[in-house]
């Protein structure tokens, strides 16, 4: 790792650790930002590196959310009574129960979606192009409808996750969820970054560029596609589990399997930042989140129109995303040697 990189990472780490204290009122938004970045980074493994536009990652996110909350409740209380609407009993987690439940819940929320990804991957990853995109779109919708009919997790009533225990100050909840999501983000980043430095990334790129050729070269593409999806599922599940606790209320189609918002947002963020790059999804998610929050404050009632305009602008002016645009504008900063004549010639050709 070069010295410059070290400085960068240290700066981000310090900023990340200090952020909830510098901007105490924005803890929730910052936590959500971390979750969004995790989703964008993991989507990029499929959409960016592998060339498989997945709308199905929301499945793992929602699964993680329900699993984490169910485990957290189910470990200590009867789950059916907790979610029952007319129930007269009130259950309260002690702080120890809350954190133990959360810890076990997050492990389950990460592991089960990974297994699910492995299982369904065999059939679904055989599809390519539009067929894959449409099939995965269906996954999220189906999961939302199915979970909306399962009584034990609240069905259409929704699922209120355990309230944060009363420990110390009012800020404890915000800080807890912020650091949880921030460390998940770091974990995701380190994992993905180290994966990208191996042959694995080259294989994913080979699949993206020409899957048949890659197979002809002796790469077991199916195996790598599934592994890639399982990695995404692991972190998406984790992100979902955290988000469930953060929001405090799980609704089948509006919060958990929220393909219409989160499912689309993760794609948008990765594309906005520049898919197929490590930093693109991170920058994309940050810019997107800031714009989104800004629109919500200043264009009340018109925020989706503003967001729509933003998307159109991105597609027209930054088809390669922010990173792609920067790379084209300042190629030398990305360590590319540019021959001016050659560049001009290329521009004219375009």
């Amino acid at each position, binding site marked *: 790792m*070069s010295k410059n990189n070290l400085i960068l990472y240290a700066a981000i780490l310090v900023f990340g650790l200090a952020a909830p204290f510098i901007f105490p009122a924005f803890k929730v938004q910052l936590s959500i930002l971390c979750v969004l970045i995790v989703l964008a980074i993991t989507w990029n493994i499929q959409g960016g590196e592998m060339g498989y536009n997945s709308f199905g990652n929301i499945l793992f996110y929602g699964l993680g959310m329900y699993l984490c909350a169910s485990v957290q409740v189910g470990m200590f209380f009867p789950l059916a009574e907790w979610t029952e609407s007319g129930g007269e009993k009130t259950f309260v987690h002690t702080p120890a129960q809350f954190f133990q439940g959360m810890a076990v819940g997050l492990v389950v929320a990460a592991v089960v979606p990974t297994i699910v990804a492995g299982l369904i991957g065999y059939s679904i990853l055989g599809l390519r192009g539009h067929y894959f995109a449409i099939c995965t779109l269906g996954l999220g919708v189906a999961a939302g409808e199915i979970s909306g009919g399962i009584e034990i997790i609240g069905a259409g009533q929704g699922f209120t996750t355990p309230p944060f225990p009363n420990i110390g100050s009012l800020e404890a909840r915000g800080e807890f969820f912020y650091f949880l999501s921030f460390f998940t983000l770091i974990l995701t980043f380190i994992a993905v970054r180290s994966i990208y430095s191996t042959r694995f990334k080259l294989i994913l790129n080979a699949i993206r560029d020409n899957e048949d050729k890659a197979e002809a070269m002796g790469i077991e593409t199916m195996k790598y596609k599934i592994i890639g999806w399982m990695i995404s599922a692991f972190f998406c599940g984790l992100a979902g589990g955290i988000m469930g606790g953060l929001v405090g209320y799980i609704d089948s189609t509006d919060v958990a399997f929220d393909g219409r918002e989160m499912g689309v947002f993760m794609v948008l963020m990765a594309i906005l930042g520049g898919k197929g790059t490590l930093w693109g999804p991170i*920058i994309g998610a940050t810019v997107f989140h800031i714009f989104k929050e800004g629109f919500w404050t200043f264009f009340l009632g018109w925020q989706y129109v503003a967001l729509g305009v933003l998307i159109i602008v991105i597609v027209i002016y930054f088809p390669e995303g922010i990173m792609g645009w920067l790379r084209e504008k300042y190629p030398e900063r990305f*360590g590319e040697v540019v021959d001016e004549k050659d560049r001009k010639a290329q521009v004219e050709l375009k």
Partner: protein
Amino acid sequence: MKLTRIILSFISAVAILFSMSATSFAKVVGDKIVLGAAVSLTGKYSSNGVHTQNGYNMAVDRINSMGGVKVGGKTYKFEIIYYDDESNPKRAAQLAERLISQDGVEFMLGPYSSGLTKAMAPVTEKYGVPMVEANGASRSLFTKGYKYLFAVLAPANLYLDVAIKTAVELNGGKGVKVAMAFEQDAFSQDVRLGILDAIKETGSTKVIDDKLPKELNDMAATLVKVKQMKPDVLVVSGHTKGALTAIRQIAEMKVDVPMLAMTHCDAAKLSKQHGKNSQYALCASQWHKTLTYKDDFFKDGMTYDADFNKMFGYAPPYQAAESSAALLVFKDAFERANSFDQKKVRDALAATDMQTFYGNIKFAPGGQNVSKPMVLFQVMCDAAGKCENKVVAPLKWASAKLIHPVPKWSER
């Protein structure tokens, strides 16, 4: 690597942005009491979200123009900060957090729908912010032990059980066959539970129990089943869109059923939008303009109806009326607490016992309003095709007699 510099400058830009936007209001500024509210201005609940907002605004206007709120010998005026929750619980929870921790709001008004209220209540509860809500009726809101949540409306399970009981009564006390179609959302599912209780109690049977998707715009499959099974009562609940869809498709498919019971008929302006097709529909309502409750601000239901019509150009559905009532409750509590201390205001709210144009308000320990019954009205049309909602139950306020069974389509 120069990339580092780009990213570092980007981070600092983000930091600056964040710190710039950190403006903060206080709960009571000068002579203003600032209330926070997230309502659905967009998304699937947008029409009811607007009714809610109009109800709030109307009451703010009225209370402010009639002298405001007197606390500690000083007069204060209400002001509301609104956000759009997009009919999305995730967003609603975030906005509650934002209203409290960023905007410094110390008193909240509820959003529209049970699901969104469920998402916001844990947040307001955590910060000890009293929330008077007018549109979250799901029973599970009141069994979580919330101390700072107060609902001016009757809980959801009471919406339509009267209809089942009436049907049984008209059937000579024998059980009836009930067909149910409910949207997959917190409110409608709770109405369903209320119906299930009523079925059990009266020895009736359920013949259809369908769950319908959100943003309900097709229920043909259920209606085909209804044609086959010939139930005595068809119960439908799915907010405004559910009511509109049900009426449209029942008329299209000419489905004959002796009793059709629904929610949200007045919010959907059924009698106006579907005219004669909506005739005979039986609707659960929290309020009706002909009820005889009174208060000093809106006088009575008829006056409220007229004033609202003048201000917003349409007849107020009960969602607007109950929202207005929420502010009357707040005003009353502030004055009795004679303080802006959240705990004191909370205790004053808990001790509320008053009459408003919308009904009597007195909170049970769980936070629900226990002193106001639901009413049932039926859409009735005259020969000229002009349709109106007439109260048919409870008998105390009934202005018309229930028409039962509903005439067949072939005889209309």
